[in-house]
């Protein structure tokens, strides 16, 4: 490797060939270029001339330079130069231990780490040293016997970043055993940038293992990934906490919330305050979306540390409400469940009661898995109901009861504290006590941070029986100290009693803001029972949650490997991410618990390489294994050789300028084609053809085929122009100027109708042209062939065909023509605009041939009188001999160009009407045939 240039040679001895360059230079100088040989008969005369200028002509200096360059390029290529070669060299002998950290912190630059490891392994392979590959996050059950570097390379393919902190200390005993079998000759350690602070023992152990052998520690330059340590829902929004390893880490970023399908629900930026290691950000996402959040992640960070998975315990609770009596339904707006629903809806799903029966409703709620159950003044509960409620609470549910007349009258066991029978009335007519305000909330209860409202008064309440532990169970009390909210823990859940009603009869608490906060905190204590799974239960009765999906080191969810254990449902909260229990979702698809890599208590500190000792070389990751320059150099030499050949041709006069141009051009194209494979995309410009198409489409135009005979073409143009004027004045169609088209070249599909005067004297269109016309007809266009021969053709059959008819037959012979028929009296052509019986043009009498409507087309053709043939679709071709265009043709002043034959009074008008009908028929198709059915359709509709 050259010190100042990131260049190395795989075969540096080949560079000695450069020493031969002076010799090559000398040889090139003395060897003249090959002369051009010419045959010259008067050579005898030349031979008589004295020899002049006998010094051999020298090669031009630039040609010598070029050839020296070629030689130098080839020599350099043979030396195998490598650009930016592997900067790390192995030093020791004997087995190489390659230790690679593959925790989540290695994930962001894992490719570089893997490349580094591969390069080290390749170097070991080149040195033929055995290798032990140790991936720290994969645990000690790997095989730590030395294998060949090729085997280790294959093993490395299976190593990927894992979503947990590597437990390196458990590796040390296994490594010690391996070292006892065969001592390492060198240890290379690719370290990850951060950990949970447990690396001290590992480093000292590794240092101890290394002893005097070389130890190479390779550290990445990228900072450790940020960690998302907590995502909580605080009623109105979602709060997320982030942590970074050091103040030099990334300080800003974006956090996003995703649903279970990976759709981004919200994205929000965050930033660390200077010097701070922790940051928080809040999402104010709509309530409807909050329940869908299944995952929070730091955008763009490919590491498991930036991912928090959210399970059901995080979600909005579902709450069931039960009220005591039907009476509540009569005036729903002052009923307790109305106030409760209003108070619960901001943070919980309120489920209506399935039945009026309290027992059934409780059971239904519990089966539904509600997190909290609100019983508003439900009086006596049966034993069965109490048992259900108890089991509900034991499973983690919160039962919130509100008192009321019924509760006060009943002797109910399902209360947190014993109650006095009856209720206490404050400020009533028989009482001299004033309505009480709320006192401070209990510090131990969940309401401690709810601001105490000063406008809440309580008129009536049920009183708790005084007892020693009453204060422990009191969450809220009145200003005079009587408990207002009491609670008792039942199993995993809670039993909460509000000593007032859920409506405003006893207090105005239900219409205060504090009511919502209190309910929220109370509901948040509960979580629904996990749906029953079919997994084996532990002896304690706990459900074993199988791994559903687990995170990999990049933070992607994937199927769980077989080594992952299931989790006991009760131990989920205490579970920390590890090799046996990687972060992920455990449980079944509709009921799962999440294990996250980070909790707020998880330490996250930079990796301290201090204890590893002084006998260490450090290195940096590198991302590429160097670029071999040999192919490029050989290609350059090849091109130089081509140029040299051209120059030689030019020097010996065999390359004239005219011949040289294409060769040089081809060479340049070849060179630049290879040098720049990515040519900039051609600028999209509107071609003139596109402009023509746009103009043709801007207006509906009648089109005609140019025959080449100027008289016919001008007549046709004038005829179509006059017809266009007629159409514009009589119908809502205002055609543009008629377009003259050449069916061989122009795009026919732009025009609905093509008028084709047949001229027997002009050249017949080619088969290709007719194929284009056929395609036009098949794609919905209509061609109106006009043989203009009604006057000249002999009446009769095929034997008396006029030249135009013969030409038309010729033209159509190559096409797929449907069977034709003269326009029947019931054809839509006779009715499409005007009612017509025949279609005269300049002449009268020739039938108008259209595609025959077959019986299959007309399923109702049973001979019954129908006003119009079904006419599904438009006839692709219409043939006449009446010279329509001649009949229509008029100049700008409106005077007609040709007299009509026989020239009855209305013939001109009928000619135009025929044209209008044809154009309308072509443009509207069977719409007109449907129009005539309208009365019948309306009648059928019953109007």
């Amino acid at each position, binding site marked *: 490797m050259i010190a100042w240039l990131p260049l190395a040679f795989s075969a540096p001895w080949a560079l000695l060939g450069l020493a031969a360059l002076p010799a090559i230079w000398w040889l090139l100088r003395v060897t003249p270029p090959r002369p051009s040989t010419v*045959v010259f008969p008067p050579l005898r*005369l030349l031979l008589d001339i004295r020899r002049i*200028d006998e010094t051999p002509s020298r090669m031009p200096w630039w040609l010598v330079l070029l050839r020296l360059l070629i030689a130098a390029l080839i020599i350099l290529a043979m030396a195998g130069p490598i650009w930016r070669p592997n900067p790390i060299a192995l030093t020791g002998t004997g087995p190489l231990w390659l230790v690679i950290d593959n925790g989540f912190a290695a994930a962001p630059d894992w490719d570089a780490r893997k490349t580094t490891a591969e390069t080290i392994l390749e170097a070991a392979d080149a040195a033929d040293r055995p290798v032990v590959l140790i991936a720290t996050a994969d645990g000690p059950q790997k095989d730590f016997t030395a294998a060949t570097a090729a085997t280790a390379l294959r093993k490395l393919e299976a190593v990927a970043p894992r979503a947990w902190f590597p437990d390196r200390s458990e590796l040390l005993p296994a490594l010690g055993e391996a070292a006892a079998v065969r001592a390492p000759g060198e240890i290379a350690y690719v370290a990850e940038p951060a950990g949970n602070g447990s690396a001290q023992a590992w480093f000292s152990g590794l240092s101890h293992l290394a002893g005097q052998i070389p130890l190479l520690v390779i550290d990445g330059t990228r900072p450790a990934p940020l960690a998302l340590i907590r995502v909580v829902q605080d009623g109105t929004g979602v709060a997320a906490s982030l942590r970074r390893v050091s103040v030099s880490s990334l300080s800003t970023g974006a956090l996003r919330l995703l649903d279970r399908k990976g759709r981004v629900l919200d994205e929000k930026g965050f930033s660390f305050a200077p010097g701070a290691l922790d940051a928080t950000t809040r999402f104010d996402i709509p309530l409807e979306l909050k329940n869908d959040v299944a995952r929070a992640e730091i955008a763009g960070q490919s590491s498991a540390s930036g991912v928090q998975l959210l399970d059901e315990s995080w979600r909005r609770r579902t709450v069931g409400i039960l009220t005591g009596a039907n009476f509540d339904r009569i005036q729903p707006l002052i009923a307790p469940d109305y106030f409760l629903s209003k108070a619960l809806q901001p943070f919980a799903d309120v489920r209506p009661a399935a039945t009026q029966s309290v027992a059934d409703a409780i059971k239904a709620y519990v089966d539904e898995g509600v997190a909290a159950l609100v019983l508003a003044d439900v009086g006596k509960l049966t034993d069965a109901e109490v048992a259900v409620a108890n089991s509900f609470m034991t499973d983690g549910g919160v039962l919130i009861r509100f008192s009321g007349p019924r509760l006060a009258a009943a002797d109910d066991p399902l209360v947190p504290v014993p109650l006095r029978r009856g209720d206490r009335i404050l400020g009533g007519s028989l009482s001299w006590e004033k309505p009480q305000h709320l006192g401070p909330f209990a510090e131990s209860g969940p309401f401690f941070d709810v601001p105490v409202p000063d406008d809440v008064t309580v008129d009536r309440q049920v009183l708790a029986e005084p007892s020693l532990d009453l204060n422990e169970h009191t969450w809220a009390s009145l200003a005079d100290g009587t408990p207002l909210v009491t609670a008792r823990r039942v199993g995993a859940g809670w039993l909460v009693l509000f000593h007032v009603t859920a409506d405003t009869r006893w207090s105005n608490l239900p219409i205060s803001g504090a009511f919502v906060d209190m309910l929220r905190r109370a509901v948040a204590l509960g979580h629904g029972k996990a749906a029953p799974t079919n997994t084996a239960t532990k002896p304690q009765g706990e459900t074993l949650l199988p791994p559903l999906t687990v995170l990999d080191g990049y933070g992607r969810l994937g199927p769980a490997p077989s080594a992952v254990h299931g989790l006991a449902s009760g131990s989920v909260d205490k579970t920390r991410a590890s090799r046996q229990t990687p972060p992920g979702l455990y449980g079944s698809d509709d009921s799962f618990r999440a294990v996250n890599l980070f909790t707020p208590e998880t330490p996250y500190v930079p990796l301290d390489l201090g204890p590893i000792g002084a006998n260490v070389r450090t290195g940096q990751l590198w991302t590429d294994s160097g670029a071999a320059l040999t192919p490029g150099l050989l290609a350059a030499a090849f091109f130089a050789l081509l140029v040299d050949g051209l120059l030689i041709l030019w020097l010996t006069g065999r390359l004239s300028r005219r011949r040289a141009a294409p060769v040089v051009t081809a060479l340049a194209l070849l060179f630049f084609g290879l040098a720049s494979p990515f040519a900039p995309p051609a600028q999209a410009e509107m071609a003139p053809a596109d402009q023509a198409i746009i103009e043709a489409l801007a207006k509906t135009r009648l089109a005609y085929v140019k025959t080449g005979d100027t008289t016919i073409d001008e007549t046709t143009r004038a005829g179509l122009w006059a017809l266009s004027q007629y159409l514009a004045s009589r119908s809502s169609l205002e055609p543009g100027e008629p377009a003259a088209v050449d069916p061989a070249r122009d795009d026919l599909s732009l025009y609905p109708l093509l008028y084709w005067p047949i001229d027997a004297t002009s050249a017949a269109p080619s088969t290709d042209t007719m194929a284009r016309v056929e395609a036009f007809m098949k794609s919905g266009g209509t061609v109106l062939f006009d043989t203009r021969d009604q006057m000249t053709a002999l009446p009769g059959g095929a034997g008396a065909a006029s030249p135009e008819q013969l030409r038309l037959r010729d033209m159509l012979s190559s096409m797929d023509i449907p069977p034709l028929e003269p326009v029947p009296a019931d054809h839509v052509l006779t009715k499409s605009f005007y009612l017509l019986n025949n279609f005269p043009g300049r002449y009268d009498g020739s039938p108008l041939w259209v595609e025959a409507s077959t019986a299959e087309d007309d399923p109702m053709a049973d001979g019954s009188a129908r006003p119009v043939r079904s006419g599904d679709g438009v006839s692709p071709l219409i043939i006449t001999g009446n010279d329509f265009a001649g009949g229509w043709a008029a100049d700008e002043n409106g005077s007609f160009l040709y007299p009509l034959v026989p020239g009855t009074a209305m013939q001109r008008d009928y000619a135009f009407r025929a044209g209008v009908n044809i154009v309308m028929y072509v443009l509207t198709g069977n719409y007109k045939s449907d129009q005539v059915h309208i009365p019948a359709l309306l009648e059928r509709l019953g109007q």
Partner: protein
Amino acid sequence: MDETAPALIGSFGPQDLAGARTLAAALPDLMVDARQVASTVTAGWHGRRRPGVGEDFWQFRPFLSGEAMRMVDWRRSARDDTTLYVRERELENAHTVWLWTDLSPSMQFRSAYSGETKRDRGLLLMFALCELLARAGERVGLIGERLPVASRHAVERLAQRLVTLPQDAARPAGDSIRRWHDVVIFSDFLAPIAELEADLDRLRAIGARVHLIQVFDPVEETFPFEGRTEFRAPEFRERLTAGRAEAWRQDYLDRLAAHRTELREVARAPGWSFIVHRTDRSAAELLLSLHGRLSAAPAALAGGDQPDREGDRP
């Protein structure tokens, strides 16, 4: 083949068979071309313009006493009361012309500046001349033949004779050449002059008139070569490499002029001529000039070497 490099068309050296074939293949075309060229020249030629033994009518003249009565043209005489007339015919003295075209390999050369090889041009000229002479009733022969023939089909005979010649045939001695005979030789005269000189001396002694036409390619005339060039001759193996061919040009042109002077000296005799013809010039041009010389009056021919002065650059 690069267009700046003069090139050899045809063959030389030992490829006799191929050479003969190209010759045989070229002959019919050349004969057709020759007839066309000849027809453009014929228009201006009016025989001997003297009364004598011949076939064409020349003039009527009064009968001189002493002449044989069978000389009288009775038909003409009957139109006149007093005089008898004699029909005279134009003199057609059958002249003998011997032709030869050099077929040596150096003649089979064509450069990019010229449309045909020197051999083809020489043959074309020879056939055209032969055609002209044959139409005029002259006796024409290829040098080496025993008897010249006076025939309308002299060209065909000439061509057949050429085809049967061995390839690379040297010019025969011409034992049949006699006094007053014309000898026309088309060649580039690049062979050593000594051989030619011996032949010409013999012909001069016999009393024949010799016309040498040196057919040259434009390249040979102008030497347009540049740069490092290796020259090869079709006839022998020797090569010459010129480092800078342009430096040789003037010397070559001088040498060529000297060579021509030498040739002209060798061919200096009354009525003789030496003409240089370039293959990029019109064949008719040379033919006209040559024909003028051949048909010149013997008196004029006796007057010295005037054609020689004016005609060396047609």
